[in-house]
């Protein structure tokens, strides 16, 4: 039999990638295209869903060419995507209504504040597992319905469809206006604030609370029961799985046991802990979400998101101009031996887990005439380390047991200094698997599992190999002192938020 491959499409925040894996989970081809970010007003972040679709149209054939194969060699396609970002489009023409609203967008700050005061808000949290925040899809969807003329009635008639990026791509790949499938998977649906975690269906109470018509929503399916077939771009490929990117990473890291944690470091930082069949409600500021659903029973997860991780490095590069490329932050940081007493809290659009304070804004503290750009570079990297510590502390508290290791992935794992720092502040080993493309791999795993390409979870676990391991080496006293300084810096952002007139 000729060699077979699984394809993954990773529709990310800044780019879309198409990756092919062989049966040993080895990467054989990568094609990638970036898309534009639109910032029409302060706090608004939008993307053009048509541009993203056109990128998919180019990278799928490109990846096949790179690997020297054709559609028949691809046993399954898995889709993974930036979560919460969504687009609305006309079912009859396929044309989007405005641009996609991105998870980073904070236009709904006021709306969220007013919804917060409505009766039933505790019940909302109970049903969807999420705190009310600008970050999730429902508030932005409500904003669209309130602000685009005639949209609500079109949505009620089912003429306008809602979709997170998985849904948008699947609908287009399976035919678009000619019978495209309008589906999503449980993990993506679990990030909208509209799905009930227990039933894993759209919840009538939540739809009513946010004023969202049911007719516009896709069908929710388990992660490995997408069952579509491409008719466009590269026809004839089975789409068997879809997962939100962070859920895909959890799966790709083979975090199948209760208590195992993965951290993905890209634009943001995303930590997920598998809590097994148990739906754990956090008492420490974490989110409850679906880890993945293979077949009948879901694996639940606790999540702590760090809004600004790699994007702080990008800010350092683009807005301050102190480095030419993101990896140079490490070179600059190594010109000094410590942070010199300087801390940066990057609360650009509020603080996420475990604080959830939308009004917080970033700050740089501890400036003296001694501080140079090297210290700032250190403080940039350390910010990601300390935010990780806060989230892992919360996870350990919720589960009642300390996690023994952190499995990491994402572009920032190339930053050796940062990985060592994370190991130091957590005081546990940090491990990077051989395939850094864990998000794509997770989507490929789910797709391949659904298609019978891999037999079971154990078969997938055997593919996980250790590529690098950072062992903690920081002195206990030093760690605790630094952590205390970080916490004080975080508290100052709260004070700043309170003193800002609203």
């Amino acid at each position, binding site marked *: 039999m000729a060699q077979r491959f699984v394809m993954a499409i990773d529709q990310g925040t800044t780019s879309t990638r198409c990756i092919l894996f062989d049966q040993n989970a*080895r990467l054989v081809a990568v094609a990638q295209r970036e898309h534009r970010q639109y910032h029409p007003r302060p706090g608004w972040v939008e993307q053009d869903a048509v541009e993203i679709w056109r990128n998919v149209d180019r990278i799928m054939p490109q990846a096949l060419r790179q690997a020297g194969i054709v559609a028949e060699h691809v046993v399954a396609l898995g889709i993974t995507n930036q979560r919460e970002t969504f687009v609305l489009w006309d079912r009859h023409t396929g044309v989007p209504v405005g641009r996609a609203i991105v998870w980073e967008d904070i236009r709904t700050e006021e709306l969220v504040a007013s919804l917060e005061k409505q009766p039933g808000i505790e019940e909302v949290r109970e049903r969807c597992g999420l705190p009310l925040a600008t970050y999730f899809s429902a508030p932005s969807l409500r904003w669209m319905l309130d602000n685009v003329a005639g949209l609500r009635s079109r949505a009620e008639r089912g003429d306008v469809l809602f979709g997170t990026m998985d849904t948008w791509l699947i609908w287009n790949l399976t035919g678009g206006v000619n019978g495209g499938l309008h589906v999503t998977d449980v993990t993506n649906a679990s990030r909208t604030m509209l799905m009930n975690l227990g039933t894993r269906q759209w919840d009538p109470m939540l739809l009513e609370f946010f004023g969202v018509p049911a007719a516009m929503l896709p069908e929710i399916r388990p992660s490995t029961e997408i069952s579509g077939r491409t008719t466009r771009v590269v026809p004839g490929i089975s789409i068997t799985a879809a997962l939100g990117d962070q859920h895909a990473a959890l799966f790709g890291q083979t975090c199948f046991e209760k208590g195992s944690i993965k951290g993905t470091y890209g634009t943001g930082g995303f930590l997920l802990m598998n809590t097994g069949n148990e739906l754990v409600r956090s008492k420490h500021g974490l989110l409850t979400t679906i880890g993945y659903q293979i077949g009948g029973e879901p694996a639940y997860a606790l999540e702590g998101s760090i809004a600004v991780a790699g994007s702080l490095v990008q800010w350092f590069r683009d807005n301050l101009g102190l480095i030419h490329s993101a990896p140079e932050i490490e070179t600059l940081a190594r010109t000094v031996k410590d942070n010199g007493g300087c801390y940066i809290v990057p609360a650009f659009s509020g603080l996420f887990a475990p604080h959830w304070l939308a009004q917080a804004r970033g700050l740089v503290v501890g400036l003296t005439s001694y501080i140079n750009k090297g210290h700032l570079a250190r403080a940039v990297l350390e910010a990601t380390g300390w935010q990780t510590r806060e989230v892992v502390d919360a996870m350990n508290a919720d589960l009642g047991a300390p996690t023994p290791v952190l499995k990491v992935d994402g572009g920032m794992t190339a930053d050796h200094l940062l990985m060592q720092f994370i190991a130091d502040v957590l005081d546990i080993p940090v491990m990077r698997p051989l395939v850094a493309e864990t998000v794509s791999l997770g989507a490929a795993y789910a797709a391949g599992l659904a298609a019978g390409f891999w037999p079971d979870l154990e078969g997938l676990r055997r593919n996980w190999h250790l590529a*690098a391991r950072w062992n903690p080496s920081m002195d206990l006293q030093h760690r605790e002192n630094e952590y205390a300084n970080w916490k004080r810096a975080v508290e100052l952002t709260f004070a700043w938020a309170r003193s800002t007139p609203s």
Partner: protein
Amino acid sequence: MLRLLARGSGHHGLTEIADSLGLARGTAHGILRTLQRVEFVEQDPATGRYRLGAALLHLGTSYLDANELRSRSINWADTLAARSGQEVRIGMHHDGAVLVVHHVFRPDDSVQTLGIGAMLPLHATALGKVLLAYDPDLSAAARRRELTSLTRRTITRTQALERVLTEVRGQGWAGEAEEYMPGEASIAAPIRIPGGLVVGAIGISGAVDRLCEPSGRPRATLVRQVLQAAESVTGALVEES
């Protein structure tokens, strides 16, 4: 070519330049003539050697950042480790030695220690031989120093090293068996930035019986994999420049 002339002694003959950049001599000569016309390069009338021209003195020299190289090559280094089943290192020259800027464990889940930041000898490792072979100043400096013997197979005579480096340039990769550590071997190939300048090397290392044929020759499949990885990294550097 300008970058080659910009570093080190700054005086190179045509053959040295062509060999260092992996260009045919005729091609190198054509390019030099062009650069001479725009005064980016001058030729010493006495020795016939080339150096940077006055027009270029206002332009800064650019280096490839080590962390940038790690970041761009991480996927390809992983792929090489997965395919070869061996540990992978990427090295750059620093202070008369190979500085390990990236390290991927042998994918057998055995206990290993991350070796980023380690310094390896130039003359006794495949990574080092690649760096020496494509940098005339570096190999000239190596010739002037004593070559430390690390095992009974370490090359300690400069003439022998010179022969090996010529061979490396000829075949486009370097190998080494038990010259650094008894029982261990390594294979490496050059990483180039656009224009052909070698800025680093990527290679595998492991048990000599895994990496080499019974005859002592590095296994052809492994050599091919290392070359492919080096080309992929070189490609990744071209893409974004």
